[in-house]
């Protein structure tokens, strides 16, 4: 589910909340079964010579795993930030923040605009006694600062209907001047189970399985050889270093991009790269096949394929 709102002075925009259901095929997350919801208080602060002034205040509330975007648009500067949030095992929040900025740098001799662009991925582990401080213009110690403070909290959603409990909401208590800031909220699947299978002459010789978090850093998925594996495969098993991003809510269950490297483990040395920078778009429930062809030949003349099976993790 998703909700979108632009914090502007227009009353109509303030009151509009766009919520779209992705086919209703996603199960509620594990934590949402407890009836808890997550709430993020978002305040934009102008600090001039130490004097704080709240320019805008809003809140995003939704089921656990609700994501939100904060956009900032001014004459010369644009910020697009995305926050993927998940409850972690420690009872806190795992936040994967992505910051994309675009700053007008000047104009060329031909009058074309020149932009300075920047993109950052910032992972955070956050407790509920902690807040996120976003500084669109950096940490410069100048007299004037613009801050966006994001404070998370768990709220009780037991009094909501099941449908409302799964719906993100945006409440704006103080609009920003000139539509300066925009906020969107989403609820999309974050956790996907990926199974990687190595095939030799069409027969499965190694397999690995793990749950991956959307927009998380790449992590290793070792493929464990079975009894059919040749000695070469068994002695130097493959490791898939995989990451997932760019979830798209296409029907019926959405699609997700995977990016991966394939490494071959060495007994007494660093793993050897077999394939680097491979990628694909996977539909949960379907397979992705890659021909390792000439790049992986543990046995001369062998025909090796790598197969991925992706599905939504339990609780999604």
């Amino acid at each position: 589910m998703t909700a979108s709102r632009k914090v502007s002075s227009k009353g109509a925009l303030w009151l509009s909340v766009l919520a779209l259901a992705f086919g209703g095929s996603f199960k509620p997350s594990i934590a949402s079964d407890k009836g808890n919801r997550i709430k993020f208080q978002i305040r934009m602060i102008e600090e001039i010579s130490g004097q704080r002034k709240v320019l805008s205040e809003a809140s995003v509330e939704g089921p656990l795993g609700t994501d939100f975007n904060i956009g900032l648009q001014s004459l010369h500067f644009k910020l697009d930030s995305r926050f993927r949030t998940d409850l972690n095992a420690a009872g806190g929040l795992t936040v994967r923040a992505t910051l994309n900025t675009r700053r007008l740098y000047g104009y060329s001799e031909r009058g074309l605009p020149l932009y300075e662009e920047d993109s950052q991925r910032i992972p955070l582990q956050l407790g509920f006694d902690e807040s996120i401080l976003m500084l669109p213009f950096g940490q410069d110690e100048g007299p004037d600062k613009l801050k966006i403070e994001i404070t998370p909290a768990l709220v009780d959603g037991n009094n909501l209907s099941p449908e409302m409990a799964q719906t993100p909401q945006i409440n704006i208590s103080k609009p920003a001047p000139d539509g300066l800031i925009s906020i969107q909220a989403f609820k999309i699947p974050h956790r996907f189970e990926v199974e990687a299978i190595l095939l030799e002459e069409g027969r499965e010789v190694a397999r690995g399985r793990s749950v991956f978090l959307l927009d998380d850093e790449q992590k290793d998925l070792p493929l464990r050889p079975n009894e059919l594996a040749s000695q070469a495969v068994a002695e130097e098993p493959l490791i898939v270093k995989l990451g997932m991003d760019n979830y798209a809510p296409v029907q019926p269950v959405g699609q997700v991009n995977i990016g991966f490297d394939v490494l071959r483990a060495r007994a007494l040395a660093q793993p050897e790269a077999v394939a680097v920078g491979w990628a694909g778009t996977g539909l949960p429930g379907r397979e992705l096949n890659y021909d390792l062809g000439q790049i992986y030949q543990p046995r001369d003349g062998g025909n090796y394929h790598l197969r991925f099976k992706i599905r939504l993790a339990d609780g999604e």
Partner: protein
Amino acid sequence: MDCKEFREVLDLFIDQELSADGMSVAEQHLLECNPCGRVERELRRVRVALKDVVNRHEPPAHLVRRIRSQFQPNWRGTLGVSSASLAADSMDDRFQSRSLSLLWRRKLSLPVPIFGALLVLIVVIVVIASWGVFRRPKAPVAGGEVGVRQPTRMSKPATGNQREADLSRFDRGDRAAILKLRTEEVPRDR
């Protein structure tokens, strides 16, 4: 030698082309014949006069100009102010005044290489002049790089009552950042 024979060899006698005996016989006849003596003197006078005319070193200016024009490139001749023609004109005031009076009426004709070079030079001058007139004024340089003007705005102007805020007072070119802080440190202001 009689008069008829003398008249036949008179040119040779004056040119002293006769043999020694012939010269003696002709001189003897001149001493004896007055009519042949008059004819001989008249012929010598005519010859001197002709020689004066033939020996003149400076031909008429118009003749010099006409002859030289046959051997000079057309562009130089038609330009009409060559030093040769002016020198010739100086010898004859009539021709000089006529030449100067017709200067403006003469055709201007140049060889292709010089004409092309002049054309290129004119084009270059025009381009340089127009470059200074039409090019955009260079604003103060941002970031110390040549040819980059300071920004004015990022996107199209907002229409209606919606306008874009200017946050440039906060922007000192730093990279956006995200920090974590304890919630109790966040002021509860409104």
